[in-house]
């Protein structure tokens, strides 16, 4: 009896996912342009959040670097956008972010806890001001125009990046590397003495998560048409993934997705309808979540599932 229900739920999940995917893949055919643009924003935040969780979720290293990698992607697009075809530009954005993250990771992942966090925060500011200095010194202008791409194309490119990211994240979680990353989060010392090449794994995973941020920056830049260092390296893109992950919960893959979706919708609703109370409400919600739901929405859902009697055993 119990088994059949569990089996049913297991069998149902891929079906539900497939329907979701088809609905999203055909969204531009039936939805209004406003909806498409809005879902694009949601996609952007899901990508930033899920890729942040790939590294920071299991290891517990709180990184404020997303804005740096996102900004690198934006500027890749701003500089190369007119000269190279779009897919190459996006790929380049991902690759440059990857290389930057490898370099930064190799340099700083020996730092633990708050030192690492502060460094990543500094990285965003450093990138911003370095670029600003360069632009004013050598090009004489602060901002740049970015090549224009239509909303449908932006939507589908983000959709593809998102699907690839979810797949990557799912596979890492299930693989032996997922296990090793979690062990690093528990105790780096014990992990190293159990044969895990801690520094390499941390650095590589950090860099892998940066690929998706960079690629997303490259395509998002085309939506904004004009960028300057303050727009590109905006710390909001560092804070949001952290907040959304905490809100959604990092224990399960759907946690950060759920966090990003609900948070973006909430933000949109509040900004358009209650602009004066927007920040206040967001702050209150975060406080409540941190105090009452330390494991985010995922924790709430699991608590609720465990209360229902048929729930026996959860495979990780």
């Amino acid at each position, binding site marked *: 009896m119990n088994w059949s229900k569990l089996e049913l739920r297991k069998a149902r999940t891929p079906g539900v996912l497939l329907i979701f995917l088809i609905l999203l893949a055909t969204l531009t055919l039936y939805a209004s342009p406003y909806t498409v643009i809005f879902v694009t924003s949601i996609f952007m935040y899901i990508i930033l959040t899920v890729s942040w969780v790939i590294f920071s979720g299991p290891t517990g290293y709180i990184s404020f670097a997303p804005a740096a990698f996102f900004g690198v992607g934006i500027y890749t697009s701003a500089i190369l956008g007119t000269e190279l075809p779009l897919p190459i530009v996006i790929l380049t954005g991902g690759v440059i972010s990857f290389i930057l993250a490898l370099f930064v990771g190799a340099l700083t992942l020996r730092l633990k806890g708050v030192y690492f966090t502060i460094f990543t925060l500094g990285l965003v500011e450093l990138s911003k001001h370095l670029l600003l200095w360069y632009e004013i010194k050598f090009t004489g202008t602060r901002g740049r125009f970015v090549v224009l791409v239509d909303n449908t194309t932006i939507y589908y490119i983000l959709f593809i990046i998102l699907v690839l990211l979810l797949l990557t994240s799912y596979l890492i979680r299930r693989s032996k590397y997922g296990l090793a990353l979690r062990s690093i989060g528990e105790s780096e010392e014990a992990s190293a003495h*159990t044969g895990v090449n801690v520094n390499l794994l941390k650095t590589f995973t950090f860099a892998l998560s940066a690929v998706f941020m960079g690629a997303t920056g490259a395509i998002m830049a085309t939506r904004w048409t004009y960028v300057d260092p303050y727009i590109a390296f905006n710390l909001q893109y560092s804070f949001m993934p952290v907040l959304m992950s905490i809100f959604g919960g990092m224990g399960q893959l759907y946690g950060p997705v759920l966090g990003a979706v609900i948070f973006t919708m909430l933000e949109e609703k509040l900004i358009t309808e209650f602009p004066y109370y927007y920040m206040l409400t967001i702050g209150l919600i975060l406080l409540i979540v941190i105090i009452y739901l330390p494991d985010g929405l995922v924790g709430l859902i699991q608590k609720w599932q465990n209360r229902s009697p048929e729930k026996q055993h959860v495979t990780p």
Partner: protein
Amino acid sequence: MSLLEGIGVTKYFGGLAAVSQVDFKIPKGKVVGLIGPNGAGKTTLFNLVSGVLIPKSGTINFKTENITGMQSYRICRKGVARTFQSVNVFGNMPVVENVLLGAIFGNSNPSSEKEAAEEAMNLLEFVGLSEMRSVPTQSLTLGDKKRLEVARALATKPELLLLDELMAGLNHTELTETMELVNKIRDRGITIFMIEHVMRVIMSICDRIIVLHHGEKIAEGTPKSIAANKTVIKAYLGE
């Protein structure tokens, strides 16, 4: 033939010589005890062997290879596993995953994930924790956590096992069980180098004993000769 050998191993913390000019040999297949008063440098010596710390001078050889200053994960994969003085398990992971990690990553000839899962189960059986396999590790008792650490270390297929105060904090029954466990590990052909304070354990299990005091080796020999050694008694009890 000695499996592990240290020559003139020295480590300073600031001006303090935590380990000073220590020579030691761990013969293959034996159980060697490392004793000494608190602060003698025992754990520091283990940390030097397992790559947590890099010696200021001296050499550490494992089999025929110089492993001085090598990274911990590489030393582990070469066949040196360890446990920790203050128990260091992955508390939020299920018990079996602790062991699984060692079986997957701990050796230079990696097992397939299926083999690793089997090995992990066998080792949990070996240390008597197979019933607990899916329990969150943090809910285990101290004794069980310590045995889990041993299982995790064994999962890396070591030739040498470093046990850092395995018996500390255990009750009488657990002590007897754990001593049996150490004997069973020795019967598997694994060489053991153990830090221990419980004299009953040391005297009955160890083939040889090394005594550290203020970072220096003050004595070495069979349990009997150590028990009768004047310098050792003085170091423990004072003048």
